[in-house]
């Protein structure tokens, strides 16, 4: 009899944890959007607006760019919204101690962080999509007919990056957090097929297969499959399968690393 009651309680505590993160996120929304969308949007201004007008870029480039920019904003938002608080909480403020003393399994505290990261990724992507479309003007082949697919890729991509964020935030020493941006995020973004379609890499076969370890590739290609299906992209099924596997791997690594930090 007590078992089902305990279950209800765990879920209500999970919601309380989520509510806390949402309240804090709502308060910091302008800063959050600035932090996670400014860079992709600046890229949109230069490569999606200025260069095409100068004649350096074909107008069709925006077709490849828009889904990629969405994927990048997801990367920034989901990784950061999980990793940065983790680094801070475990590194010096110890704020999370309070939540680690909640009467639920500690893994749920980590799972909640991932869910919060997914929600923030979705907010960031939903913000970037219309703004980028506005800046770039009409985009050849763009369709919102498969919005369900867009949402699916957004959620899966955000889950993969949030799990990665959990892993990075708990595995990296606070002093080395700068490295996360330089050594992990930057290469991921430049070699993530966000600024060019994966098929374009056929010119450099080694690279075409090397980049497959990069989760961003699947998110960017998935966005292409959903938003600009008439242009070259990976099959949606491949993308979904890859993202599920990647999320599972990062989830496991992240959980293990979190537990190590959470329980001495």
């Amino acid at each position, binding site marked *: 009899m007590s078992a089902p009651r305990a279950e209800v309680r765990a879920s209500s505590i999970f919601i*309380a944890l989520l*509510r806390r993160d949402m309240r*804090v996120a709502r308060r910091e929304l302008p800063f959050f959007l600035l932090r996670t969308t400014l860079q992709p949007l600046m890229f949109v201004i230069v490569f999606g607006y200025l260069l095409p007008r100068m004649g350096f870029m074909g107008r069709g480039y925006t077709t490849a760019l828009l889904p990629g920019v969405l994927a990048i904003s997801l990367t920034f938002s989901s990784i950061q919204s999980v990793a940065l608080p983790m680094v801070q909480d475990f590194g010096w403020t110890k704020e999370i101690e*309070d939540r680690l*003393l909640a009467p639920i399994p500690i893994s749920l505290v980590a799972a909640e962080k991932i869910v919060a990261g997914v929600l923030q990724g979705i907010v960031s992507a939903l913000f970037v999509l219309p703004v980028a479309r506005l800046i770039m003007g009409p985009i050849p082949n763009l369709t919102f007919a498969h919005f369900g697919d867009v949402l699916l890729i957004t959620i899966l991509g955000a889950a993969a990056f949030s799990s990665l964020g959990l892993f990075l935030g708990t595995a990296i020493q606070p002093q080395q957090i700068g490295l996360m941006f330089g050594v992990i995020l930057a290469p991921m973004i430049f070699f993530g097929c966000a600024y060019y379609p994966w098929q374009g890499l056929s010119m450099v076969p080694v690279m075409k297969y090397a980049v497959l370890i990069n989760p961003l590739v699947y998110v960017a290609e998935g966005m292409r499959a959903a938003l600009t299906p008439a242009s070259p992209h990976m099959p949606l099924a491949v993308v979904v399968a890859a993202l599920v596997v990647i999320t599972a791997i990062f989830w496991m690594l992240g959980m293990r690393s979190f537990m190590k930090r959470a329980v*001495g």
Partner: protein
Amino acid sequence: MRALRKVYKGTGKAKRGGSTHSARWAPPGAGSPPVNDVVALDSLDLDIRAGEFFGLLGPNGAGKTTAIGILTTRILPTSGKATVAGADVVEDSARVRQTIGVVPQRPNADLSLNVLENLQFHAAYFGISFDVATKRAYELLERLGLADKAGSKMSEMSGGQQQRLMIVRALMHEPDIIFLDEPTVGLDPQARLDLWEILRDLHKRGRTIVMTTHYMDEADRLCDRLAIVDRGKLLALDTPRTLKSKAPGGTLIELVLDGDSAPAGVIAETIAGISRVEAANGLLRVHSSRGGQTLPALIEAAESSGRTVTDIHLLQPSLETLFVSLTGRKLG
């Protein structure tokens, strides 16, 4: 009973098993632990009773925080067993967390939330509704003298206020047992006295309190029973009064010499009223049944051995002299 060896080996371990609201530390598993690790706790065996104000007294590095960490499910014991209110701290950690409130060594409030929100969300993490939590938060803030701080951010609170907030937070879910880890470190004297009052009041209201401290007077005045620990071992366990009565009789006198103290020690043993002579590393430590009256003879003993006395300390019989006699070093 004496754990004077300064051995750094093995892994941290602690355990306790116990009855309701209480804890017992069983001996750790046999076998030698890996070399080079610090033994934070070494077969500590304790039983804390329900409703008791229990103190873990020891110097920094004695293993107190590790002990509290294990009992509050934040640290896994290497071996052994501990239960809190009948629940195993490893197997049944969520249930343990339900019955305990924890006041950390350093305030760790949620910096993104204000005082009231901190309390509301803490309660929510225990399944308590915001309405109930808000009412309770105001009551507790009032009781602990923080009524006007409900809307404040952490940066607007003094260290003492933040520490009191940690106590309010620990009480929000009405736990039976409260753990406090060196709660008065870094507080000014007045804040410290205020905190003592709060703790006494909580104890009067029937809460079991487990507190670590390295302040003798704090342990002496607050606790029903005290465990003196050092280097992970339990050295003594009793009421402060009984412990004090166990303190070696007479005044503890320490003379710091400018060189080897062994020859002076030999002479000191012949002085009337002097017992328990320890001489090592330029330190001459004796117990004097005639208080400071033996000082001239002691100084003479030092000088006749060719040494100069550079410093002198006298300690009256107290927990401190007991501690020194147990561990060979001072607390602070």
